[in-house]
């Protein structure tokens, strides 16, 4: 290391509280793992017993989107709130340096990967009802596709209207609410749906949630409110993300 020995020593001195905390945490974890306790009772049996009523054959999806759909609803809103927080920040005065030309290699990678990403996201969404996969995974991959498009400053995103962006971000969380309230209108509890119509509800919920999560992640990466025109004008046709300059 190029640092002097005295600097390293002072760095070590500064780090000892952290080291102590880590050692304590580790000891606690080891104790919790090794200590004899009551035998853990899993919920696997209960989940299996009511799996047929859930509308899907994957246990994880059944738990996430039916038995404990409340959690997933809140998670959708957490990501939504994240976007709201980022948009409410004052734009940075620092502008990105004018980037070198993206180059043919990057754009051809983008043309190759983005369709494949959408395809794989669709596959994960579809596979989610009977094996691993689902809305969040598919959404993350869609977000990756969005990030790739943004990095290449692709004209595809520059043409995306701001209004469309806002609607797309809202779609997932609010569709979730609509489904939840629709269950109440039919005389059930909030978010309660059962086998015959549950499959449809879960599949549509997952698709909209994945779409919105992907859009939210890409928006988080863009990192600022879209530069739309002022409210009075027709903001639906202004580009959401202009190129960094």
């Amino acid at each position: 290391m190029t640092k002097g020995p005295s600097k390293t020593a002072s760095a070590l001195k500064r780090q000892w509280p952290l080291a102590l905390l880590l050692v304590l945490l580790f000891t606690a974890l080891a104790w919790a793992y090794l200590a004899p306790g009551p035998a853990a009772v899993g919920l696997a049996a209960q989940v299996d017993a009511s799996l047929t009523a859930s509308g899907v054959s994957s246990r994880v999806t059944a738990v996430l989107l039916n038995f404990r759909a409340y959690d997933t609803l809140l998670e959708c809103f957490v990501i939504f709130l994240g976007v709201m927080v980022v948009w409410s920040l004052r734009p940075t005065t620092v502008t990105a340096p004018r980037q070198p030309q993206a180059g043919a290699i990057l754009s051809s990678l983008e043309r190759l990967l983005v369709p494949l990403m959408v395809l794989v996201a669709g596959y994960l969404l579809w596979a989610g009802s009977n094996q691993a996969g689902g809305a969040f995974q598919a959404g993350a991959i869609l977000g990756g596709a969005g990030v790739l498009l943004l990095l290449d400053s692709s004209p595809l995103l520059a043409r995306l209207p701001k209004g469309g962006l806002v609607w797309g971000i809202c779609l997932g969380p609010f569709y979730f609410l609509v489904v939840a309230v629709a269950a109440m209108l039919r005389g059930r509890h909030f978010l309660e749906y059962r086998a015959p119509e549950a499959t449809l509800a879960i599949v549509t919920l997952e698709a909209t949630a994945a779409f919105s999560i992907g859009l939210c992640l890409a928006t988080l990466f863009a990192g600022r409110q879209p530069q739309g025109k002022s409210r009075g004008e027709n903001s639906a046709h202004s580009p959401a993300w202009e190129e960094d300059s």
Partner: protein
Amino acid sequence: MVVNAFDICLCLTLAWLAWQVLRSHDLFKAVVLFISFGMLMALSWVRLQAPDLALAEAAIGSGLTGALFLSALQRVTGNKRGERRLDRNEERHDKRA
């Protein structure tokens, strides 16, 4: 036996990586270490037989956090200081060469 060795190796590398992320003063280094941490985390979820989480971690940890953190680093440190931070190491390297 081999499986145990694999798990132990995974655990040790994860713990060591976490420690390095925390103690690194160079933010860029911490970001790269964190990306590696995410990838190892995906392997751990596979070993813990949670393929759902492994999928999510593979997508988020290996691709998105890297891009998000690097973009955030550029904004947080401000363009000039951030670059100087990155370039400092290279200058040092140049001098030595």
